């Protein structure tokens, strides 16, 4: 899922300068699962805004709302009407939600309450880790299911660099060397010989370096 993190409150309060009515809009998609922008977080942030404004002696009306998702047009529909009543919509969705509101709901001023970080998995309660870089040209079939693009600090294609020591990455002893893990994994399947082949230089276009990406499935188009 998409992992996000709430922006520092100070930054959010700066966005609310001069705002009298704000809608704190959560999302029940990924950001709810990673405890960054679901119902609960909407409540907490709304309370923090009220308290913060109160301390400054300013008045603000904060309305809390959480949509099923902010990345599908049908769920955004209510915002067309609702949004008109607010000076600002503070979206607690990932960047996709903020963009989508900006695109689809004209006349509504939207700002982000989160920093969208990465595609990751939930290791344990409160801990998420990057697993995929969305590079658009998957090589996981060659690397035992472990991604060198997302999980190697230098996105190497051809094995561990000289900084790999004891299965750890040189940039941080907390970070495992993914190439070491790939090697061990393939060795476990007796497939380590496949790492003798040189992986050719990558085409980075599918990863977004060829311009903004779009996906079309003709058969599903209306």
């Amino acid at each position, binding site marked *: 899922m998409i992992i996000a993190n709430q922006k520092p409150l100070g930054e959010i309060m700066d966005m609310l300068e001069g705002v009298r009515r704000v809608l704190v809009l959560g999302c*029940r998609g990924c950001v*709810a699962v990673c405890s960054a922008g679901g119902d609960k977080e909407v409540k907490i942030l709304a309370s923090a805004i009220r308290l913060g404004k109160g301390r400054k002696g300013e008045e603000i009306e904060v309305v809390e709302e959480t949509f*099923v998702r902010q990345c599908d047009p049908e769920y955004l529909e209510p915002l067309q009407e609702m949004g008109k009543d607010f000076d600002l919509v503070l979206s607690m969705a990932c960047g996709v939600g903020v963009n989508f509101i900006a695109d689809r709901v004209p006349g509504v001023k939207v700002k982000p309450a989160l920093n969208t970080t990465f595609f990751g998995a939930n290791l344990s*309660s409160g801990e998420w880790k990057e697993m995929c870089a969305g590079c658009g040209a998957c090589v996981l079939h060659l690397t035992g299911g472990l991604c060198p693009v997302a999980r190697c*600090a*230098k*996105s*190497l*294609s*051809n*094995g*561990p*660099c*000289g*900084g*790999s*020591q*004891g*299965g*750890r990455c*040189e*940039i*941080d002893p907390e970070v495992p*060397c993914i190439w*070491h893990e790939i*090697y*061990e994994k393939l060795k476990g399947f007796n497939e*380590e010989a496949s*790492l*003798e082949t*040189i*992986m*050719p*230089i*990558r085409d*980075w*276009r599918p990863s977004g370096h*060829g*311009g903004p990406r779009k996906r*079309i*499935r*003709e*058969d*599903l188009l*209306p």
Partner: protein
Amino acid sequence: MISGSNLESILTSGQFAVTGELGPPKSGNRDIVRKKARILKGYVDAVNITDCQTAIVRMSSLTAGLLALSEGVEPVMQMTCRDRNRIGMQADILGAHALGIKNLLCLTGDHQKFGNHPQAKGVFDMDSIQLLQMVKAMRDERRFQCGEEIKGGEPRLFLGAAANPFADPFEYRPIRLKKKVDAGANFVQTQIIYNVEKFKEFMKRCVDLGITERCYILAGVTPPKSLGMARYMKNFVPGLDVTDEVIGRLKDAKDVREEGINIAVDIINEVREIPGVAGVHVMAIEWEEAVPEIVKRANLLPRPEAKIEPVLMGAQSIDEAVEQARKEAEERLQGEISRYKEEVEASKRQAEKEKEESAREINALKREMASKEDELSEKERRIQELLDALRAEKAKIVELESKGVVSTVSTVAGEVSEETKVLEEDIVSRKQLDFALRSMEAGLEALKKVLGLEDEAFEALKRFIEAEFVLKGEGPAVPTGPVTPPTEKRPPAPPEEVAQPVEAAGEEPEVHKRAKEVVNLVAKGNLLLHQGKAAEALTEFKKALEIDPEDEKAKAGLEEAQKAISAKETEEQKEEPRAEETKEGIPPTPEGLTDEEWQRKWVIRLIATGNCALYEKDQDKAISCFEQALRLDPENEKAKRGLEAAKKGEFPTYESPREEVVEEAPKKEEAEERPVAEAAPPEEKVEEVKEAAPPQKEEVKEAKPKEEAGPAPAPKAAAAIEVSGEFEFKKEETSLLDRIGSIPQDLFMEKATGSIREVVIGDGEKAITVGGASALPFHLFEGEMPHAPKIAYDVLDSKPEEMPEPLLKYYEECLDDPVKWAKKCETEFNAQAICLSLVSTDPNGLDRSSSEAAKLAKEVIDAVECPVILWGCGNAEKDTETLREITAMVTDKKVCIGPLTDANYRNLGATAMAMGLPVVASTPIDVNLAKQLNILLENLGLGLDHILMDPSIGAVGYGLEYTYSVMERIRLAALMQQDEKLQAPFICNVGREVWKAKEVKLPTDEMLGDQEVRSILLEAITAASLLFAGGELVIMRHPRAVALTNALIQGLMG
């Protein structure tokens, strides 16, 4: 020769090479580079110029390399992949060649994290191996990385790579080095070596891999400058192996620097002896002065003389050099002139004194002076010429720069990439379309195959004949021959093809709608055809062709349907005479069956056929079938009833499988094998039963309060009394609304806008209904909760390997007999339902065969009256097999089957739909996956009123909170946001999760307390928590935990 560099010629000539290292300054001061170069000059064959090592900004390696070259030192330019992409790197490579650089060392580069700009974006467009490949192709194939040809002057570079023998995994290091050599490395410089033994092993492997025959390996050596530096390298530099011996030597040394140099010399002497080592790379980091000493002591002097070509420098440097040369010449000439002048003066004076004597001498001196002056003017003229030439050169350079070669190149590249992009998008969409078409084709192929499987399908069909009737509108499957394909072999494609267009048919343009209608009709036709209803299928195909006469699939289907009809006719014709051949009107007994069995099956089939006929209102056929059945088995009740109905002309109408459950329920006791005729009994019968039912219901009502209240003794269930007697919750007598006082209701009331569907499990009066809530769990002040949550007892179908003591106490005597176990749960503990866990079928465990497990399961199902949930082992394929086997045997009971996952929902869903059974839809703790599976099952035709959602739960301490929040979110979506696809009740397999926890297995001790109390509470609290999250049916094991949970439920339900 590749590049003709000094390093290359020394290595190819077989001499032992020495290279050094020069770190460019963190400034623009060229004198630092020059000074360092001069120190190394004459002591090394080439000098590595680092490329912003450790990611600290320094003078670029290209520039510093040129400065070294101007000092007559051959540079090895280093290039990393960290700071430039392939465009920048190729540009610099071309430039390096143009300016006389001949060696290039290709590196990935240190991560920017280590440097002075950790905020920088690391480029890493490629890695070192891919860089080697790229430069090799530029050099040998004269093409850029993109494939475009390099016209007129490819970069001739002697390529180097780095290797670290001390990084991990050790055994992969030589292989990775081989990759570098394969990619194009001509020479290799290793990481600093202190552990010579490990390096020897590394070299041995390199020799074995043939690396040393294809490239030159230079061993890396660094003199430790201080003890602190050695310790730092040992502890903080990844991939450096500083031995304790080295540390020890430095610690004991009087002069640490001297010892450092000795260590380096010793290592050089050792590595020289290792086969395959072609030279050394001496890196004296910020200690260049040590290099001459080390090289001298290691007896590597003198170095072969390097033939360095003069380097063309930047314009400013040229001006400066010219200026300096002019100044020097001027000074020299001025000096000479003044000297000559003095001499002339002196000689004049002398001449005056000795006029006569020196007249000739004066003449000679005059001539000499004149010639000197000539020489002077000639020199000045030459300087002027040189200056003019240089100015012209400078002007040319400026002109070249201004022509803007770069911009034209980039425009061309831009156009090309745009073209390819468009092309690529086109290909992608065409591919997607292609793929979609192919998968649709595959579905149809599968369907055809199934139609071809007639003989194999025959046996399966017989089992499903009765089940077929349950399906509305699909009842009259013709049970006469192999024409009808079996329900269980239904391929996944047709239901989906029907479902998808329906789902998507929101606001579509007319054309699409028509196309979709065709697809729909074809799919429907295929489905019908596949169900054996060829005639109906024919009409569908015809309809489709009316809309779109060109549709290939409809045409093919039409043909198929026509074939099927003619095949069926011939089959029927064959069938009749064959039936007459046998004495009693039975076809010959097939292999593997006794005559008796065959006869019984034939009777069932006849009755089924009769029932079919009844639905089709074909009175004559029905009568003849039932009569034939009665001839074979005069006592058969179903046949008698059928005959009666047929004669009276009572044709049943059938509404939906759901109602059947309710209608049938009271009649459970009648027959073991439920006849088809009962599937939809006439209304009169229902009334009869209703009249008969009340006394029994009263009994049940009486029994229940006893059990819940506890103290009242029930003679047969001692354990149950003991258990339930201990737990009583004090009920809150005043309602919430009274207690809340004056707080306005709209402050706390949140009425649900949706409600949970009801699901019935089991038959007769023991059937249980779960779901139906229109409020959050136990929020009775907000809405209805018509059915209290239910608890099922978990029964394992094989003796578990270990069972915690608190459970063993209750189940020890029946562990290896699931029938006894289930009976015990029902009679002693008053179980509301039984969950039979088919753990024995797990392919990773006992791997009991499906048929064996099915037999046992049937015994259990027959032995108890309460509803049974069949819970597979979790292996999708095995569960499909086992559960089908069981449902085929147990046609008369509405068991609940599960778990259905995304891997087997089609097959098991079809089975459940055929039999009208409720299912458990299992997903791994995820709202979206749960919803998706529900949608898939609905598309298949199974309603939400037959689905129990298993969200995959965790016990307290084992992820309960995660389960809780997912369940809560599902429930809120179902109730508050009208998310209809999530309005199914929850089932939670609590027992299984709790009783594998560590805490229930640890014996009683002071810290953890009594084992039994602990484990009961763990199970009860897990169950209670999940009930609060919306759980409607929980599966548990410990009777006391069940009693505790039940008491809680009763207390809360008021």
